[in-house]
């Protein structure tokens, strides 16, 4: 008994150490900077400044709004797609899965940069339009294209958990529903949808969380004109000429709390019925 216990400690030690150094310590730094001034004395001013600064607030609510839009659009695309994907034969399912995963094999920076090249003023699409005698279109620099960028990047995180929970629904339940008088639409509504809620909730979290803290996509797609909260944090830490770790850490801390709250809300929903089938994050 004792032996196995000490053995466990030895085995766990590297992971505990790793977590401590690379997760807990940085977190403590964030908290430290958030509650101190530039010369290291304790203060609440950073938090107060953040919430009373109109510029920060605009950026903050913009991030929330874009993230909600991106999540909703991803869900609307992903659910029917996942349903259809679960209906086709096994080899087509594998093929579709591969296509969904394919963009994820590329780095986000490379993906986003490629899209910027495709959509910019003298980019691929506009060159094509001009070659057939049409006016070029200004794609970049608006909210729509940034939300598109987020949907494009994070859609797989919505599809995978939903697909996994839909395909786990026992086929005999669908037959039972059919047998009891439900047509296909009724079966989706009364059986598949309620049973795939855990997948939908994981999908929502897995898309909303990275969206709300997005940076880079917004900068690339708007030439730095539309900022999201992630861009502001990046600026504060190392892009601006005078780095301000304290306000950067404050915004990070607020963002983390928002994410924790949204996770808690989602978990509350999925607690109501402890169906397995979703991806737990």
């Amino acid at each position: 008994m004792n032996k196995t216990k000490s053995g466990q400690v030895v085995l766990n030690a590297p992971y505990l150490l790793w977590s401590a150094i690379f997760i807990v310590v940085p977190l403590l730094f964030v908290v430290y900077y958030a509650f101190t001034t530039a010369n290291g004395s304790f203060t609440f001013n950073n938090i107060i400044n953040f919430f009373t600064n109109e510029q920060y607030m605009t950026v903050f609510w913009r991030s929330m709004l874009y993230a909600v839009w991106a999540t909703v659009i991803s869900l609307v695309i992903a659910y029917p797609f996942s349903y259809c994907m679960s209906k086709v034969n096994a080899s087509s399912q594998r093929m579709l899965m591969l296509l969904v995963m394919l963009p994820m094999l590329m780095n986000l920076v490379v993906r986003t940069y490629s899209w910027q090249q495709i959509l910019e003023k003298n980019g691929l699409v506009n060159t094509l339009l001009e070659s057939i005698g049409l006016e070029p279109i200004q794609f970049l620099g608006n909210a729509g294209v940034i939300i598109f960028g987020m949907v494009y990047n994070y859609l797989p995180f919505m599809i995978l958990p939903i697909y996994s929970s839909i395909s786990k629904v026992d086929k005999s339940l669908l037959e039972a529903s059919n047998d009891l008088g439900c047509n296909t639409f009724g079966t989706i509504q009364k059986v598949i949808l309620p049973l795939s809620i855990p997948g939908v909730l994981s999908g929502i979290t897995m898309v909303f969380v990275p969206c709300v803290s997005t940076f880079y996509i917004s900068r690339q797609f708007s030439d730095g004109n539309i900022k999201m909260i992630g861009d502001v944090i990046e600026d504060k830490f190392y892009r601006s000429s005078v780095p301000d770790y304290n306000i950067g850490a404050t915004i990070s801390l607020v963002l983390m709390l928002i994410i924790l709250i949204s996770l808690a809300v989602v978990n509350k929903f999925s607690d109501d019925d402890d169906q397995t089938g979703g991806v737990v994050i």
Partner: protein
Amino acid sequence: MNKENIIQLKDIRMSYDGETVLDGIDLTIRDGEFVTFLGPSGCGKTTTLRIIAGFESQDGGDVFFGGQNINAVPPHKRNINTIFQRYALFPHLNVYDNVAFGLKVKNTPKSEIHDKVIEMLELVNLKGLEKRKIDTLSGGQQQRVAIARAIINHPKVLLLDEPLSALDLKLRKDMQVELKNLQKRTGITFIFVTHDQEEALSMSDTVVVMDKGKIQQIGSPADIYNEPENAFVADFIGESNIIDGVMKKDFLVQINGRDFECLDSGFNTNENVDVVIRPEDVDIVPPINGMLEGVVTSVTFLGVHYEIIVDINNFKWMIQTTDFHDVGETVGLFIEPDAIHIMKKSEYSGKFGDYSSYSDELDEMNEEAAEAAALAEESEDE
């Protein structure tokens, strides 16, 4: 019993990946009957049931419901309900909502749904469990929910796909009786699928014995047992000694070089036939009084009786008797004319009915089980 036909199958054919599963099924089921499809795994009985339910469409042939061709009618528009092998209860709904499912789909008024659900739950002895979640119920309780969920819709036909196979023996026996009573009380036509011959014999009005995608015999339980059509049916339903014989003339058959009186006629003179003799119909007598003589090679005590294997000219007979006879003893066998049943030779001749080795039979069973598992996997892959 001159009731109208409720289900009619005409030359139903079905194959998966070039492998024939159903090979021309013709069957008529009368309204209010308790019909059982009986056969080993892979015989096509479940496929036939699924075609009647509408979950699968046959490659060829027609399904009629009350005289109407329903080939193109989807399952949700058929007045047929199913009890699934593993019940297929909705895990996100409680007992009440599971049972109410069919009525809610039909937009029945709430108060009517409530009354009917309560009535159904009373009928299956589940009153008071309305709010329970499905996964908190025992196997037997889940079974009852499945029954209530199906018959609350007053189907004309209820399909039951091996519904008792997941229950333990005692519960299974109780549910057999309950299902039979339920069928009598509601007058609903039951089509029951099982591989358990005892279950089939004890519950059904009509038994349909199937093998290799074909119907081997249709008849009452007594007919199936007493007058099997071929060696397969004789072996599958109960224990049988199946011996090669020659029909000398009407009412006289030669077995092991000795003539036996029997009750069968209508065969050609000197036609080769299969002779079925049930183990319980053979009396063991002193050799001098016996019609045949053999040596006891094995004795198994089974509680009610002994199962004795007797070697007669290298053919092992199984005999069930309450008298003990020791291994090595020479005994005589006495067989009454009405214990002898003559069958025409079929593709199954020579494959069954010899008890020379139990292990052979076990091997066969294992093979079958492996095949069934492979088949189940395949169908899951779809």
